[in-house]
């Protein structure tokens, strides 16, 4: 019982501490590719610290929803991170939620963020919420199907079961084509859900090009810090899902300190690698027009659908 609590706490701390680093790493890669030096990789930590200490300015049009949302968003994203295997395959909280729960916990945060966007009464916030609605609508089916595809190989949507079986390569169906398709689909979904180019540009200053940023335009001080941290957590969560579901080797399969320490290092390496890939992709492509995002997400949906179909046809 104590051991489980320690592991859960460890996961929370790991997720919270590493997420700003990942954001910093992506920015650094982009800067380098633009032939700039760029800010240090630990700059996001300084940014968060600064934001926490600043005064908060709240619009007179808003209600309690606006001030409650950053806390709800942060809590739900952190909660979702606790359900995902990070350095140990058998997460203590795996009885509390599976991968569908993770998706819906993130949706809880998105729901309140959409409300907060509408709360200030400015047209930008409403626009952000409206665009977020359509992007989220298009990513959900692809996400659920790619999760199903992966879950089918392990016979369950329980994340610990999937990761554990894949890591030990026992009792699991290995099949490159559906796995590859599910991976690509989930990768595209990651780009969409975390607001990265080519779906949304996290570094833009032009309100009319914003999706996620427009919803949080009115936030300042510690509220903004919590929202930014929650976005970083969400990004880290998706990268963890991508690396630990498809290539979990290195993760600790028993709760032994040495193996868990190794698991942390391997995890850090994997998510950093994926972060670099994302940085490169963000530099290679331009942001898509909102109504062209359907094409991209359509590809993700078809790939995830095919991944599921492949599983059934090849396992006949």
């Amino acid at each position, binding site marked *: 019982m104590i051991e489980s609590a320690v592991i859960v706490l460890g996961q929370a701390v790991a997720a919270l501490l590493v997420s700003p680093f990942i954001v910093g790493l992506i920015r650094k890669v982009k800067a380098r590719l633009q032939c700039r030096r760029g800010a240090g990789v630990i700059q996001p930590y300084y940014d968060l610290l600064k934001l*926490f200490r600043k*005064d*908060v*300015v*709240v*619009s*007179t*049009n*808003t*209600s309690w*929803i606006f001030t409650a949302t*950053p806390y709800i968003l*942060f*809590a739900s994203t*952190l*909660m979702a991170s606790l359900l995902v295997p990070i350095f140990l395959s058998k997460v203590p909280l*795996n*009885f*509390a*939620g*599976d991968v*569908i729960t993770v998706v*819906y*916990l993130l949706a*809880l945060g*998105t*729901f309140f963020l*959409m*409300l907060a966007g509408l*709360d*200030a*009464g*400015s*047209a930008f916030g*409403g626009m952000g*919420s*409206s*665009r977020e*609605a*359509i992007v*989220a609508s298009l990513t*959900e*089916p692809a996400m*659920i*199907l790619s999760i*199903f595809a992966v*879950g089918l190989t392990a*016979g*369950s*949507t*329980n994340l610990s079961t999937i990761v554990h079986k894949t890591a030990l390569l026992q009792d699991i169906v290995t099949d490159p084509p559906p796995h590859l398709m599910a991976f690509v689909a989930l990768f595209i979904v990651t780009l969409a859900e975390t607001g990265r180019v080519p779906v949304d540009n996290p570094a833009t200053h032009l309100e009319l090009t914003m999706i996620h940023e427009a919803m949080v335009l*009115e936030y300042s001080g*510690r509220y903004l810090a*919590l929202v930014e941290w929650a976005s970083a957590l969400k990004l880290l969560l998706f990268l963890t899902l991508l690396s630990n579901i498809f290539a979990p080797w290195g993760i600790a399969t028993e709760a032994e300190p040495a193996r868990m320490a190794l698991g942390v290092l391997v995890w850090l390496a994997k998510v950093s690698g994926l972060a670099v890939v994302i940085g490169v992709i963000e530099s290679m492509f331009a942001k898509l027009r*909102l*109504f062209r995002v*359907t094409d991209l997400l359509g590809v993700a949906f078809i790939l995830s*659908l095919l991944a*599921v179909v492949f599983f*059934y046809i090849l396992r006949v």
Partner: protein
Amino acid sequence: MIQLFLLIALVGYGLGIFLPLLAHRRPHVQNILAHGAALLGAVGGVVVGAMGLAAEGPYVFSLPSTLPLLRYAIRLDPLSAFFVLVISLVGVAVSVFAVGYVREFYGRHSIGALGALYNAFLLSMTLVVLADDGFFFLVVWEIMSLVSYFLVVTEHEKAEVRYAGFFYLIMTHVGTAFIIVTYLVFYQQAGSFSFEAFRNPSEPLPQGLRSVAFVASLIGFGTKAGIVPLHVWLPYAHPAAPSHVSALMSGVMIKTAIYGMVRVYFDFLGGEFPWWWGFVVLTVGAVSALLGVMYALMEHDLKSLLAYHSVENIGIILMGIGAGMIFQSYGLTQLAALGLLAGLYHTVNHAMFKGLLFLGAGSLLYATHTRNMEEYGGLIRKMPWTAFFFLVGAVSIAALPPSNGFVSEWLTFQSLFLSFQIPDLLVKMMLPIGAAMLALTGVLALACFAKAFGISFLAMPRSAHARNAREVPVAMRVGMAGLAVVCVLLGVAPMVVVPVIDRVTAPLIGVSIADKVLAEGGLALMPMGVGSAAISTPVLGLLLALLVPVAWLMAVVIGGKLRKRFYKTWGCGITLKPRMEYTATGFAQPIKQVFSTIYRPTVKLETELLEESRYFAKRMHFETHIEPVFQKYLYDPVVRSLNAVADRLRVVQAGSLQLYLSYIFVTLLILLLWVR
């Protein structure tokens, strides 16, 4: 004991029908009498339902009547007790709400009639799910339909209300016709209308007739439930009715149709089904769910939006039931029980949160006197309680953890996921596609309620209606609070609800899964045993509730004391006016554009330019419509051909008295000759 409470329930409703009519011209007395009696009846119903679920065997009671073939027979088995419980729980909350709400109608309409009809409605619905005889069922079903028609046309001075009522009346009778066909099929084989005879006929029905019964009952009950394409009456009738009645219609009346389907499929036609039955139900469910939510997104009348969401949720319920039926056809009884359990759990959840949302919409209507969302705004400050309860309902219907909607949607996902155990390739591939559609439906519902709650309650008021709104009376708030509490309980205590529903599914399918579903000392739901997927909403809820103060504490530790300043929203230097806020139509516009193949929107823009300078516009008129696909391509042609046929037949009615007399004369001659 059951008899006692059943009697209390019947007497309560009965008093509610007669007493209000006596207190003439005293609306307040009529109000209290009617709703007090209804409350009594509903509380009795709750107890009856609970006792029926806990009972060992079914309770049966019957009385012969003066008419041949008709017996007043009722039977309280777990399935009917479940539905009685659902009906009565919603009835309790709505009756309390109605005490405050019908004040709207004082002086304008007869409260006595309204109260009497309300009680008759609740009574007839309770009897529908209790009926144990086909003929009696049809009688009470018809009473329920007629009473609800009269309730819908309460405000009959408005043309649109009359139209809605008329449409509803026709559609419900079409449905009833198909139900009659179903029962006649059973009657013909069983020789009597009693449900017991339907269940165990002397010889089993041949397969062809079983399929006829299946299709007829799907259409018949489906019309009442609101499956696509038979749903068109819902968005007219539910908004037209007074809000507390809409809550009952949407929350409970359409569930009686689900009861009918479950009764016919699992009880009468039980055991072996061909796989295509479940497949049809699943497909109908998936299509209804998706189309329901898509049309809901485009509505800006709050009650129409909620009505379309009822179509969507009926679709989700049918997806669970359909999956259950498919598993049953392959003999996978545990999975079949899971599917049916998911469907029934969603039934009770939807009744609660839809009832809550309609009561919320009723409160908004009471406070602002308009149903148009585009005229709301900023109401969270004027009506904080209503806003909070509406938020609970919105979170539940969007299936966000740890709400009750999440639990039932998760169970539905699991039953769709576990399809890999089905041997047939085509069928088992359809279930993941159903899951994709369910996922799309879920996220669109989330977007729709972000819109509904956000536009109605947040930011600034968009009209004088909204600016002058005030919080609603206590009775209305208490009614909403009751349903909100039930929603929360259903969400965090699934380990209590699942064994109860299992008592309903076990006799129908033959296996009990309660002990397999609960795990971790009862904290978690684990459908397929250890190692498979699980959720634990109490733990999720607890941790979420803990993490929020933890986040706050972290912010305080890192950032020190909170210093807040208030200022206007930044509007690029212009003072923001309510007209600059986002509208409901604007919010849904990207979705309309992306899914334009389904919506086929048409836009009309007329500009009137100034005479002095043709560069400036004096007036612009903008109209956008989505194509009413079902009305245009399905209903209108049917209506046109019916009218055409009727026109032809009109020749018979020439208006001349002598002609009519000669018709009678000729018929008389023919009959006399024939008898000879």
